[in-house]
Protein backbone atom coordinates (compact mmCIF):
# COMPACT_ATOMS: atom_id res chain seq x y z
CA UNK A 1 0.00 0.00 0.00
CA UNK A 2 1.29 3.43 -0.90
CA UNK A 3 -0.59 6.26 0.81
CA UNK A 4 -1.07 9.57 -0.90
CA UNK A 5 -2.19 12.92 0.41
CA UNK A 6 -5.43 12.80 -1.52
CA UNK A 7 -9.03 12.87 -0.46
CA UNK A 8 -10.17 9.25 0.03
CA UNK A 9 -12.72 8.24 -2.53
CA UNK A 10 -16.17 7.35 -1.30
CA UNK A 11 -15.63 3.79 -2.46
CA UNK A 12 -12.46 3.31 -0.49
CA UNK A 13 -13.85 5.05 2.54
CA UNK A 14 -17.15 3.22 2.77
CA UNK A 15 -15.59 -0.17 2.11
CA UNK A 16 -13.18 0.46 4.97
CA UNK A 17 -15.99 1.80 7.10
CA UNK A 18 -17.89 -1.44 6.99
CA UNK A 19 -14.93 -3.24 8.43
CA UNK A 20 -14.18 -0.58 11.05
CA UNK A 21 -17.69 -0.53 12.45
CA UNK A 22 -17.37 -4.27 12.95
CA UNK A 23 -14.35 -4.02 15.24
CA UNK A 24 -16.49 -3.95 18.35
CA UNK A 25 -20.18 -4.48 18.81
CA UNK A 26 -20.91 -0.85 19.63
CA UNK A 27 -19.97 0.00 16.03
CA UNK A 28 -23.43 -1.15 15.03
CA UNK A 29 -24.89 1.81 16.91
CA UNK A 30 -23.44 4.32 14.45
CA UNK A 31 -25.67 5.69 11.69
CA UNK A 32 -24.17 8.58 9.72
CA UNK A 33 -27.36 10.36 8.72
CA UNK A 34 -28.89 10.03 12.13
CA UNK A 35 -25.62 11.27 13.63
CA UNK A 36 -25.60 14.31 11.36
CA UNK A 37 -29.10 15.14 12.49
CA UNK A 38 -28.07 14.65 16.13
CA UNK A 39 -25.01 16.85 15.74
CA UNK A 40 -27.18 19.53 14.13
CA UNK A 41 -29.39 19.54 17.21
CA UNK A 42 -26.46 20.56 19.42
CA UNK A 43 -26.79 24.25 20.33
CA UNK A 44 -24.15 26.62 18.93
CA UNK A 45 -22.67 27.56 22.29
CA UNK A 46 -21.85 23.90 22.87
CA UNK A 47 -19.97 23.50 19.60
CA UNK A 48 -16.22 23.46 20.06
CA UNK A 49 -15.25 25.33 16.92
CA UNK A 50 -17.79 28.07 17.55
CA UNK A 51 -16.49 28.71 21.02
CA UNK A 52 -12.93 28.86 19.71
CA UNK A 53 -13.91 31.37 17.01
CA UNK A 54 -15.63 33.50 19.57
CA UNK A 55 -12.52 33.45 21.76
CA UNK A 56 -10.43 34.64 18.82
CA UNK A 57 -12.89 37.48 18.22
CA UNK A 58 -12.87 38.42 21.91
CA UNK A 59 -9.09 38.16 22.17
CA UNK A 60 -9.24 35.79 25.13
CA UNK A 61 -7.63 32.47 26.03
CA UNK A 62 -9.94 29.59 26.98
CA UNK A 63 -9.02 26.94 29.54
CA UNK A 64 -9.43 23.18 29.19
CA UNK A 65 -8.54 20.30 31.52
CA UNK A 66 -7.78 16.64 30.83
CA UNK A 67 -10.10 14.17 32.55
CA UNK A 68 -11.59 10.74 32.21
CA UNK A 69 -12.61 7.88 34.48
CA UNK A 70 -13.86 4.36 33.91
CA UNK A 71 -17.49 4.66 35.00
CA UNK A 72 -19.77 6.87 32.96
CA UNK A 73 -21.83 8.34 35.80
CA UNK A 74 -18.61 9.19 37.62
CA UNK A 75 -17.29 10.67 34.40
CA UNK A 76 -20.32 12.94 34.08
CA UNK A 77 -19.92 14.04 37.70
CA UNK A 78 -16.27 14.73 37.05
CA UNK A 79 -16.83 16.89 33.98
CA UNK A 80 -19.69 18.68 35.63
CA UNK A 81 -17.46 19.48 38.57
CA UNK A 82 -14.76 20.81 36.26
CA UNK A 83 -17.11 23.24 34.54
CA UNK A 84 -18.76 24.47 37.73
CA UNK A 85 -15.95 24.33 40.30
CA UNK A 86 -13.07 24.52 37.84
CA UNK A 87 -14.57 27.22 35.60
CA UNK A 88 -13.43 25.23 32.56
CA UNK A 89 -14.42 26.83 29.25
CA UNK A 90 -13.92 23.66 27.24
CA UNK A 91 -14.25 20.07 28.42
CA UNK A 92 -12.32 16.91 27.58
CA UNK A 93 -13.00 13.25 27.64
CA UNK A 94 -9.67 11.54 28.03
CA UNK A 95 -9.75 7.97 26.79
CA UNK A 96 -8.09 5.07 28.66
CA UNK A 97 -4.94 3.33 27.45
CA UNK A 98 -6.56 0.01 26.53
CA UNK A 99 -9.00 1.68 24.19
CA UNK A 100 -6.10 3.60 22.69
CA UNK A 101 -4.62 0.29 21.69
CA UNK A 102 -7.95 -1.12 20.54
CA UNK A 103 -7.90 -3.63 23.38
CA UNK A 104 -11.61 -3.41 24.05
CA UNK A 105 -11.70 -6.68 25.98
CA UNK A 106 -9.23 -5.36 28.51
CA UNK A 107 -11.16 -2.12 28.71
CA UNK A 108 -14.26 -4.15 29.49
CA UNK A 109 -12.37 -5.85 32.34
CA UNK A 110 -11.32 -2.42 33.52
CA UNK A 111 -14.95 -1.26 33.62
CA UNK A 112 -15.99 -4.38 35.53
CA UNK A 113 -13.16 -4.16 38.03
CA UNK A 114 -13.88 -0.46 38.56
CA UNK A 115 -17.48 -1.31 39.38
CA UNK A 116 -16.29 -3.94 41.85
CA UNK A 117 -13.61 -1.93 43.61
CA UNK A 118 -15.41 1.40 43.49
CA UNK A 119 -12.31 3.18 42.19
CA UNK A 120 -11.42 3.83 38.58
CA UNK A 121 -9.10 1.05 37.43
CA UNK A 122 -8.76 2.68 34.01
CA UNK A 123 -6.80 5.82 33.30
CA UNK A 124 -9.55 7.23 31.12
CA UNK A 125 -13.10 6.89 29.76
CA UNK A 126 -13.57 3.87 27.43
CA UNK A 127 -15.67 5.51 24.69
CA UNK A 128 -15.82 2.54 22.34
CA UNK A 129 -17.02 0.11 24.97
CA UNK A 130 -19.76 2.49 26.03
CA UNK A 131 -21.00 3.28 22.52
CA UNK A 132 -23.00 6.12 21.03
CA UNK A 133 -25.88 6.46 23.47
CA UNK A 134 -23.85 6.70 26.63
CA UNK A 135 -21.57 9.22 24.93
CA UNK A 136 -24.61 11.32 24.12
CA UNK A 137 -25.66 11.15 27.74
CA UNK A 138 -22.27 12.55 28.65
CA UNK A 139 -22.00 15.27 26.03
CA UNK A 140 -25.60 16.45 26.34
CA UNK A 141 -25.72 17.11 30.09
CA UNK A 142 -22.74 19.44 30.11
CA UNK A 143 -22.86 23.18 29.54
CA UNK A 144 -19.65 23.44 27.52
CA UNK A 145 -18.31 21.86 24.33
CA UNK A 146 -16.57 18.51 24.83
CA UNK A 147 -13.56 17.12 23.01
CA UNK A 148 -12.14 13.60 22.79
CA UNK A 149 -8.49 13.46 23.87
CA UNK A 150 -6.62 10.20 23.62
CA UNK A 151 -3.40 9.00 21.94
CA UNK A 152 -4.74 6.28 19.67
CA UNK A 153 -2.77 5.21 16.61
CA UNK A 154 -5.81 3.54 15.02
CA UNK A 155 -8.68 5.70 16.14
CA UNK A 156 -11.13 4.97 13.34
CA UNK A 157 -13.86 3.27 15.36
CA UNK A 158 -13.27 5.68 18.22
CA UNK A 159 -13.86 8.60 15.86
CA UNK A 160 -17.06 7.09 14.50
CA UNK A 161 -18.52 6.55 17.96
CA UNK A 162 -17.26 9.87 19.32
CA UNK A 163 -18.79 12.07 16.64
CA UNK A 164 -22.03 10.15 16.58
CA UNK A 165 -21.88 10.44 20.37
CA UNK A 166 -22.04 14.23 20.25
CA UNK A 167 -18.42 15.25 20.75
CA UNK A 168 -17.67 18.32 18.65
CA UNK A 169 -13.88 18.19 18.68
CA UNK A 170 -11.38 15.43 18.22
CA UNK A 171 -7.68 15.34 19.04
CA UNK A 172 -4.89 13.46 17.31
CA UNK A 173 -3.12 12.79 14.06
CA UNK A 174 -1.21 10.14 12.17
CA UNK A 175 2.15 11.35 13.46
CA UNK A 176 1.35 12.88 16.81
CA UNK A 177 -0.71 9.92 18.00
CA UNK A 178 1.77 7.41 16.71
CA UNK A 179 5.38 8.34 17.42
CA UNK A 180 4.90 9.38 21.08
CA UNK A 181 2.22 6.76 21.79
CA UNK A 182 3.29 3.62 20.00
CA UNK A 183 6.21 1.31 19.51
CA UNK A 184 5.35 -0.72 16.46
CA UNK A 185 2.88 1.13 14.22
CA UNK A 186 4.41 2.26 10.95
CA UNK A 187 3.89 5.89 9.99
CA UNK A 188 2.36 4.81 6.75
CA UNK A 189 -0.29 2.80 8.59
CA UNK A 190 -1.21 5.51 11.05
CA UNK A 191 -1.37 8.21 8.39
CA UNK A 192 -3.81 5.97 6.57
CA UNK A 193 -5.85 5.45 9.76
CA UNK A 194 -5.98 9.18 10.33
CA UNK A 195 -6.96 9.87 6.75
CA UNK A 196 -10.03 7.84 7.61
CA UNK A 197 -10.69 9.94 10.70
CA UNK A 198 -10.16 13.17 8.80
CA UNK A 199 -12.27 12.02 5.89
CA UNK A 200 -15.08 11.18 8.28
CA UNK A 201 -14.82 14.69 9.71
CA UNK A 202 -14.80 15.96 6.12
CA UNK A 203 -18.01 14.07 5.38
CA UNK A 204 -19.67 15.60 8.43
CA UNK A 205 -18.39 18.98 7.26
CA UNK A 206 -19.95 18.39 3.83
CA UNK A 207 -23.18 17.45 5.57
CA UNK A 208 -23.16 20.78 7.35
CA UNK A 209 -21.64 19.71 10.67
CA UNK A 210 -18.27 21.20 11.60
CA UNK A 211 -16.08 19.17 13.93
CA UNK A 212 -12.93 20.78 15.30
CA UNK A 213 -9.72 18.80 14.80
CA UNK A 214 -6.58 19.18 16.86
CA UNK A 215 -3.20 17.60 16.07
CA UNK A 216 -1.48 16.72 19.37
CA UNK A 217 1.14 19.41 19.74
CA UNK A 218 3.45 18.37 22.58
CA UNK A 219 4.49 14.95 21.16
CA UNK A 220 6.59 13.32 23.90
CA UNK A 221 6.27 16.41 26.05
CA UNK A 222 9.94 16.39 26.85
CA UNK A 223 12.27 19.06 25.47
CA UNK A 224 10.56 19.18 22.10
CA UNK A 225 11.94 22.16 20.22
CA UNK A 226 9.23 24.35 18.65
CA UNK A 227 10.47 23.72 15.12
CA UNK A 228 9.80 19.99 15.42
CA UNK A 229 6.35 20.11 16.95
CA UNK A 230 5.30 23.05 14.78
CA UNK A 231 6.37 21.19 11.63
CA UNK A 232 4.41 18.09 12.65
CA UNK A 233 1.37 20.22 13.47
CA UNK A 234 1.44 21.83 10.05
CA UNK A 235 1.87 18.53 8.24
CA UNK A 236 -1.08 17.07 10.12
CA UNK A 237 -3.11 20.18 9.38
CA UNK A 238 -2.36 19.78 5.67
CA UNK A 239 -3.27 16.08 5.77
CA UNK A 240 -6.52 16.85 7.57
CA UNK A 241 -7.43 19.68 5.25
CA UNK A 242 -6.90 17.40 2.27
CA UNK A 243 -9.68 15.17 3.62
CA UNK A 244 -12.07 18.09 3.98
CA UNK A 245 -11.49 19.19 7.57
CA UNK A 246 -12.28 22.90 7.97
CA UNK A 247 -11.57 23.72 11.59
CA UNK A 248 -8.10 23.02 12.96
CA UNK A 249 -6.38 23.86 16.22
CA UNK A 250 -2.60 23.60 16.05
CA UNK A 251 -0.73 23.06 19.29
CA UNK A 252 2.52 23.46 21.13
CA UNK A 253 3.82 22.26 24.51
CA UNK A 254 5.50 24.82 26.73
CA UNK A 255 9.28 24.74 26.88
CA UNK A 256 9.61 27.26 29.70
CA UNK A 257 11.57 30.17 28.25
CA UNK A 258 8.94 32.85 27.81
CA UNK A 259 10.42 34.45 24.73
CA UNK A 260 10.72 31.09 22.99
CA UNK A 261 7.24 30.02 24.06
CA UNK A 262 5.56 33.15 22.75
CA UNK A 263 7.62 32.91 19.57
CA UNK A 264 6.60 29.29 19.13
CA UNK A 265 2.88 30.07 19.16
CA UNK A 266 3.42 33.10 16.96
CA UNK A 267 5.35 31.16 14.31
CA UNK A 268 2.99 28.21 14.53
CA UNK A 269 -0.05 30.34 13.79
CA UNK A 270 1.70 32.28 11.04
CA UNK A 271 3.13 29.33 9.14
CA UNK A 272 0.03 27.18 9.56
CA UNK A 273 -1.91 29.92 7.81
CA UNK A 274 0.75 30.33 5.16
CA UNK A 275 0.95 26.63 4.33
CA UNK A 276 -2.78 26.03 4.35
CA UNK A 277 -3.27 29.02 2.08
CA UNK A 278 -0.49 27.89 -0.19
CA UNK A 279 -2.22 24.57 -0.75
CA UNK A 280 -5.56 26.18 -1.37
CA UNK A 281 -7.17 25.74 2.04
CA UNK A 282 -7.99 29.38 2.61
CA UNK A 283 -11.35 28.50 4.13
CA UNK A 284 -9.84 26.38 6.91
CA UNK A 285 -10.12 28.11 10.27
CA UNK A 286 -6.97 27.99 12.40
CA UNK A 287 -6.72 28.44 16.13
CA UNK A 288 -3.90 27.64 18.56
CA UNK A 289 -3.52 25.63 21.73
CA UNK A 290 -0.76 26.01 24.31
CA UNK A 291 -0.05 23.08 26.63
CA UNK A 292 1.25 23.84 30.09
CA UNK A 293 4.57 22.07 30.76
CA UNK A 294 4.19 18.48 29.56
CA UNK A 295 7.35 16.94 31.02
CA UNK A 296 8.15 15.73 34.51
CA UNK A 297 6.51 17.84 37.23
CA UNK A 298 7.58 18.67 40.78
CA UNK A 299 5.91 16.40 43.34
CA UNK A 300 5.10 19.20 45.74
CA UNK A 301 1.66 20.67 45.04
CA UNK A 302 2.59 24.27 45.77
CA UNK A 303 5.53 24.00 43.38
CA UNK A 304 3.25 22.39 40.82
CA UNK A 305 0.98 25.44 41.14
CA UNK A 306 4.02 27.56 40.29
CA UNK A 307 4.63 25.54 37.11
CA UNK A 308 0.95 25.59 36.18
CA UNK A 309 0.72 29.34 36.65
CA UNK A 310 3.79 29.98 34.56
CA UNK A 311 2.22 27.95 31.77
CA UNK A 312 -1.00 29.91 32.08
CA UNK A 313 0.92 33.18 31.89
CA UNK A 314 2.90 32.12 28.82
CA UNK A 315 -0.28 30.96 27.06
CA UNK A 316 -2.09 34.23 27.50
CA UNK A 317 0.93 36.42 26.77
CA UNK A 318 1.28 34.44 23.53
CA UNK A 319 -2.44 34.91 22.83
CA UNK A 320 -3.08 31.20 22.35
CA UNK A 321 -6.75 30.47 21.72
CA UNK A 322 -6.83 27.91 24.50
CA UNK A 323 -4.56 26.43 27.13
CA UNK A 324 -4.50 22.82 28.30
CA UNK A 325 -4.18 22.77 32.04
CA UNK A 326 -2.12 20.54 34.34
CA UNK A 327 -2.97 19.77 37.95
CA UNK A 328 -1.10 19.90 41.26
CA UNK A 329 -1.22 16.06 41.29
CA UNK A 330 0.60 15.76 37.95
CA UNK A 331 3.75 14.07 39.26
CA UNK A 332 1.78 11.65 41.39
CA UNK A 333 -1.04 10.24 39.30
CA UNK A 334 -4.38 10.87 37.68
CA UNK A 335 -5.74 13.82 39.66
CA UNK A 336 -8.79 13.95 41.87
CA UNK A 337 -11.50 16.22 40.58
CA UNK A 338 -10.62 18.75 43.26
CA UNK A 339 -6.97 18.88 42.22
CA UNK A 340 -8.02 19.17 38.61
CA UNK A 341 -10.36 22.07 39.38
CA UNK A 342 -7.65 23.79 41.41
CA UNK A 343 -5.26 23.74 38.46
CA UNK A 344 -8.03 25.21 36.34
CA UNK A 345 -8.83 28.02 38.76
CA UNK A 346 -5.18 29.05 39.11
CA UNK A 347 -5.06 29.12 35.32
CA UNK A 348 -8.33 31.03 35.03
CA UNK A 349 -7.03 33.72 37.36
CA UNK A 350 -4.03 34.30 35.13
CA UNK A 351 -5.67 34.07 31.73
CA UNK A 352 -8.21 36.68 32.82
CA UNK A 353 -5.73 38.84 34.72
CA UNK A 354 -3.25 39.01 31.87
CA UNK A 355 -5.62 39.10 28.94
CA UNK A 356 -4.79 42.69 28.11
CA UNK A 357 -1.05 42.06 27.94
CA UNK A 358 0.41 40.86 24.64
CA UNK A 359 4.03 39.81 24.16
CA UNK A 360 3.91 38.91 20.49
CA UNK A 361 5.53 42.05 19.21
CA UNK A 362 8.49 42.19 21.56
CA UNK A 363 11.60 42.33 19.35
CA UNK A 364 13.21 39.32 21.06
CA UNK A 365 10.05 37.32 20.35
CA UNK A 366 10.04 38.34 16.73
CA UNK A 367 13.71 37.43 16.39
CA UNK A 368 13.12 34.04 17.99
CA UNK A 369 10.14 33.35 15.72
CA UNK A 370 12.31 34.14 12.72
CA UNK A 371 14.68 31.39 13.85
CA UNK A 372 11.84 28.93 14.42
CA UNK A 373 10.26 29.68 11.06
CA UNK A 374 13.57 29.26 9.31
CA UNK A 375 14.02 25.87 10.95
CA UNK A 376 10.46 24.87 10.11
CA UNK A 377 10.94 25.83 6.48
CA UNK A 378 14.09 23.68 6.30
CA UNK A 379 12.14 20.70 7.60
CA UNK A 380 8.91 21.26 5.69
CA UNK A 381 10.61 21.96 2.38
CA UNK A 382 12.60 18.77 2.73
CA UNK A 383 9.47 16.76 3.52
CA UNK A 384 7.80 18.23 0.46
CA UNK A 385 10.85 17.42 -1.62
CA UNK A 386 11.03 13.84 -0.37
CA UNK A 387 7.34 13.39 -1.17
CA UNK A 388 7.71 15.12 -4.52
CA UNK A 389 5.04 17.54 -3.39
CA UNK A 390 2.98 14.94 -1.48
CA UNK A 391 3.08 15.44 2.29
CA UNK A 392 1.86 11.94 3.10
CA UNK A 393 4.59 10.25 1.09
CA UNK A 394 7.07 12.88 2.21
CA UNK A 395 6.33 12.28 5.87
CA UNK A 396 6.94 8.56 5.64
CA UNK A 397 10.22 9.19 3.85
CA UNK A 398 11.16 11.95 6.25
CA UNK A 399 10.83 9.71 9.28
CA UNK A 400 12.87 7.07 7.54
CA UNK A 401 15.56 9.62 6.74
CA UNK A 402 15.48 11.21 10.19
CA UNK A 403 14.42 14.51 8.65
CA UNK A 404 11.50 14.30 11.04
CA UNK A 405 12.82 12.96 14.33
CA UNK A 406 11.11 13.27 17.69
CA UNK A 407 13.22 13.21 20.84
CA UNK A 408 12.45 10.55 23.48
CA UNK A 409 9.89 8.79 21.32
CA UNK A 410 9.16 5.08 21.89
CA UNK A 411 8.44 4.36 18.23
CA UNK A 412 10.65 2.06 16.19
CA UNK A 413 9.90 4.21 13.17
CA UNK A 414 11.57 7.22 14.71
CA UNK A 415 15.29 7.73 14.13
CA UNK A 416 16.01 9.00 17.63
CA UNK A 417 19.18 10.78 16.59
CA UNK A 418 18.12 14.31 17.39
CA UNK A 419 19.02 15.35 20.92
CA UNK A 420 17.72 18.58 22.48
CA UNK A 421 19.26 20.54 25.34
CA UNK A 422 18.58 23.90 26.88
CA UNK A 423 20.74 26.91 26.25
CA UNK A 424 21.92 29.27 28.95
CA UNK A 425 18.59 31.08 29.23
CA UNK A 426 16.54 27.89 29.10
CA UNK A 427 15.42 27.92 25.47
CA UNK A 428 15.41 24.44 23.91
CA UNK A 429 18.19 24.05 21.33
CA UNK A 430 19.90 21.06 19.74
CA UNK A 431 22.87 19.14 21.03
CA UNK A 432 22.54 16.72 18.12
CA UNK A 433 20.93 17.91 14.90
CA UNK A 434 20.73 14.31 13.64
CA UNK A 435 19.57 14.34 10.05
CA UNK A 436 17.44 17.45 10.26
CA UNK A 437 18.13 19.41 7.08
CA UNK A 438 19.34 22.59 8.74
CA UNK A 439 21.43 25.21 7.01
CA UNK A 440 24.95 25.75 8.28
CA UNK A 441 24.07 29.02 9.98
CA UNK A 442 21.33 27.27 11.97
CA UNK A 443 23.71 24.47 12.92
CA UNK A 444 26.24 27.04 14.07
CA UNK A 445 23.58 28.94 15.97
CA UNK A 446 22.61 25.89 18.02
CA UNK A 447 26.19 24.94 18.68
CA UNK A 448 27.04 28.43 19.78
CA UNK A 449 24.05 28.59 22.13
CA UNK A 450 25.13 25.37 23.83
CA UNK A 451 28.76 26.44 24.00
CA UNK A 452 27.60 29.55 25.78
CA UNK A 453 25.91 27.38 28.38
CA UNK A 454 28.86 25.02 28.64
CA UNK A 455 31.18 27.92 29.30
CA UNK A 456 28.91 29.31 32.01
CA UNK A 457 28.64 25.88 33.62
CA UNK A 458 32.35 25.20 33.24
CA UNK A 459 31.78 21.82 31.61
CA UNK A 460 31.76 20.34 28.12
CA UNK A 461 28.63 20.22 25.97
CA UNK A 462 27.46 16.65 26.57
CA UNK A 463 24.58 14.21 26.98
CA UNK A 464 24.72 14.83 30.71
CA UNK A 465 23.16 18.24 30.00
CA UNK A 466 20.16 16.52 28.44
CA UNK A 467 19.69 14.27 31.45
CA UNK A 468 20.02 17.23 33.79
CA UNK A 469 17.46 19.13 31.73
CA UNK A 470 14.94 16.27 31.80
CA UNK A 471 14.95 16.32 35.60
CA UNK A 472 15.28 20.06 35.99
CA UNK A 473 11.68 21.28 36.33
CA UNK A 474 10.83 18.42 38.67
CA UNK A 475 13.71 19.60 40.84
CA UNK A 476 12.73 23.26 40.65
CA UNK A 477 14.88 24.54 37.80
CA UNK A 478 14.57 25.07 34.07
CA UNK A 479 18.18 24.64 33.03
CA UNK A 480 19.77 21.51 34.54
CA UNK A 481 22.94 22.98 35.99
CA UNK A 482 25.69 20.73 37.35
CA UNK A 483 25.82 20.53 41.13
Amino acid at each position, binding site marked *: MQIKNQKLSDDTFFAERKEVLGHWHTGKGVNFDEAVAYQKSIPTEKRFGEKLSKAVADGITLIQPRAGVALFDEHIKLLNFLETEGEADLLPTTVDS*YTRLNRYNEAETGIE*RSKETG*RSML*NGFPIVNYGVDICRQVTSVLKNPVQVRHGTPDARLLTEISIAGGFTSYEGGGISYNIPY*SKAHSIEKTIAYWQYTDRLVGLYEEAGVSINREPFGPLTGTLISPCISNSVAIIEALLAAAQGVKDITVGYGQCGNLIQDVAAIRSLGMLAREYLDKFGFKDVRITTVFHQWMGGFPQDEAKAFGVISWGAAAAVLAKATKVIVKTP*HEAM*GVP*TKEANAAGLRATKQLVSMLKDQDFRSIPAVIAESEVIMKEMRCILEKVEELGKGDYAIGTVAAFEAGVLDIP*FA*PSRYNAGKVMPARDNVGAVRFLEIGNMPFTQDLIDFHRQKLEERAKYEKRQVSFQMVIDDVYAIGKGFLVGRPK
Partner: protein
Amino acid sequence: MNGKTIVTGVIGADVHAVGNKILAYALEQAGFKVINLGVMVSQEEYIEAALETNADAILVSSLYGHGEIDCNGLRQKCDEAGLKDIPLLAGGNLVVGKQNFEDVEKRFLDMGFTRVYPPGTSVETSIADLNEILGL
Protein backbone atom coordinates in the same frame (compact mmCIF):
# COMPACT_ATOMS: atom_id res chain seq x y z
CA MET B 1 31.39 -3.30 34.28
CA ASN B 2 30.34 -4.89 37.53
CA GLY B 3 29.37 -8.24 36.00
CA LYS B 4 25.65 -7.94 36.74
CA THR B 5 22.93 -8.07 34.11
CA ILE B 6 19.68 -6.22 34.49
CA VAL B 7 16.53 -6.43 32.40
CA THR B 8 14.58 -3.17 32.17
CA GLY B 9 11.38 -2.17 30.45
CA VAL B 10 7.99 -0.53 30.76
CA ILE B 11 5.18 -3.04 31.20
CA GLY B 12 1.81 -3.41 29.49
CA ALA B 13 0.38 -0.87 27.09
CA ASP B 14 2.49 1.87 28.61
CA VAL B 15 4.55 4.07 26.29
CA HIS B 16 6.30 6.38 28.75
CA ALA B 17 9.78 6.18 27.28
CA VAL B 18 11.70 9.00 28.93
CA GLY B 19 12.34 7.52 32.38
CA ASN B 20 13.13 4.16 30.81
CA LYS B 21 15.75 5.61 28.49
CA ILE B 22 17.37 7.57 31.27
CA LEU B 23 17.29 4.74 33.79
CA ALA B 24 18.91 2.37 31.28
CA TYR B 25 21.59 4.93 30.48
CA ALA B 26 22.31 5.53 34.17
CA LEU B 27 22.51 1.82 34.98
CA GLU B 28 25.03 1.35 32.19
CA GLN B 29 27.06 4.26 33.46
CA ALA B 30 26.98 2.60 36.88
CA GLY B 31 28.55 -0.54 35.44
CA PHE B 32 25.59 -2.83 34.83
CA LYS B 33 24.96 -4.75 31.67
CA VAL B 34 21.50 -3.52 30.68
CA ILE B 35 19.03 -5.38 28.50
CA ASN B 36 16.53 -2.62 27.85
CA LEU B 37 13.29 -3.86 26.34
CA GLY B 38 11.88 -0.35 25.94
CA VAL B 39 8.17 0.32 26.31
CA MET B 40 5.07 -1.85 25.95
CA VAL B 41 6.74 -4.96 27.29
CA SER B 42 4.71 -8.08 28.07
CA GLN B 43 5.39 -10.29 31.08
CA GLU B 44 6.64 -12.99 28.70
CA GLU B 45 9.18 -10.68 27.11
CA TYR B 46 10.76 -9.87 30.47
CA ILE B 47 11.04 -13.55 31.31
CA GLU B 48 12.45 -14.53 27.93
CA ALA B 49 15.06 -11.81 28.11
CA ALA B 50 16.03 -12.72 31.66
CA LEU B 51 16.39 -16.39 30.78
CA GLU B 52 18.36 -15.67 27.63
CA THR B 53 20.83 -13.36 29.33
CA ASN B 54 20.91 -15.08 32.69
CA ALA B 55 19.92 -11.80 34.27
CA ASP B 56 20.40 -10.92 37.94
CA ALA B 57 17.31 -8.74 38.31
CA ILE B 58 14.27 -7.45 36.48
CA LEU B 59 13.28 -3.78 36.76
CA VAL B 60 9.66 -3.20 35.84
CA SER B 61 8.48 0.32 35.19
CA SER B 62 4.85 1.32 34.99
CA LEU B 63 3.82 4.93 34.68
CA TYR B 64 0.41 5.12 33.11
CA GLY B 65 -1.72 3.80 35.98
CA HIS B 66 -2.53 0.26 34.88
CA GLY B 67 0.46 -1.18 36.73
CA GLU B 68 -1.62 -3.17 39.15
CA ILE B 69 -3.41 -5.05 36.39
CA ASP B 70 -0.29 -5.43 34.25
CA CYS B 71 2.05 -6.71 36.98
CA ASN B 72 -0.33 -9.26 38.44
CA GLY B 73 1.02 -12.82 37.98
CA LEU B 74 4.56 -11.91 36.91
CA ARG B 75 6.12 -13.58 39.96
CA GLN B 76 4.20 -16.82 39.32
CA LYS B 77 5.29 -16.82 35.68
CA CYS B 78 8.91 -16.28 36.76
CA ASP B 79 8.64 -19.18 39.18
CA GLU B 80 7.22 -21.41 36.48
CA ALA B 81 9.93 -20.37 34.02
CA GLY B 82 12.67 -21.28 36.48
CA LEU B 83 13.55 -17.76 37.61
CA LYS B 84 12.70 -18.76 41.17
CA ASP B 85 14.31 -16.06 43.29
CA ILE B 86 15.13 -13.39 40.76
CA PRO B 87 14.73 -9.94 42.30
CA LEU B 88 11.71 -8.16 40.85
CA LEU B 89 11.68 -4.39 41.29
CA ALA B 90 8.75 -2.17 40.37
CA GLY B 91 8.65 1.59 40.12
CA GLY B 92 7.08 4.58 38.38
CA ASN B 93 3.50 5.74 38.92
CA LEU B 94 2.26 2.26 39.68
CA VAL B 95 -1.42 2.91 40.30
CA VAL B 96 -4.14 5.28 39.16
CA GLY B 97 -4.11 8.51 41.10
CA LYS B 98 -2.34 9.85 44.16
CA GLN B 99 -2.65 7.00 46.65
CA ASN B 100 -1.03 6.33 49.98
CA PHE B 101 2.28 4.70 49.03
CA GLU B 102 2.34 2.25 51.94
CA ASP B 103 -0.87 0.65 50.61
CA VAL B 104 0.47 0.46 47.09
CA GLU B 105 3.73 -1.01 48.31
CA LYS B 106 1.90 -3.66 50.25
CA ARG B 107 -0.23 -4.66 47.27
CA PHE B 108 2.89 -5.07 45.10
CA LEU B 109 4.87 -6.91 47.77
CA ASP B 110 1.90 -9.25 48.09
CA MET B 111 2.09 -9.82 44.34
CA GLY B 112 5.65 -11.05 44.90
CA PHE B 113 7.76 -8.02 44.08
CA THR B 114 11.05 -7.69 45.96
CA ARG B 115 11.05 -3.92 46.17
CA VAL B 116 8.53 -1.25 45.22
CA TYR B 117 9.29 2.41 44.49
CA PRO B 118 7.17 5.56 44.69
CA PRO B 119 6.81 8.17 41.92
CA GLY B 120 9.92 10.18 41.19
CA THR B 121 12.44 7.77 42.68
CA SER B 122 15.89 9.06 41.76
CA VAL B 123 18.37 7.00 39.75
CA GLU B 124 20.79 7.31 42.66
CA THR B 125 18.34 5.47 44.95
CA SER B 126 17.59 2.89 42.27
CA ILE B 127 21.27 2.12 41.76
CA ALA B 128 22.12 2.08 45.46
CA ASP B 129 19.31 -0.40 46.10
CA LEU B 130 20.32 -2.64 43.23
CA ASN B 131 23.87 -2.69 44.52
CA GLU B 132 22.61 -3.72 47.92
CA ILE B 133 20.24 -6.39 46.62
CA LEU B 134 22.88 -7.89 44.38
CA GLY B 135 25.51 -7.71 47.12
CA LEU B 136 27.85 -5.37 45.24
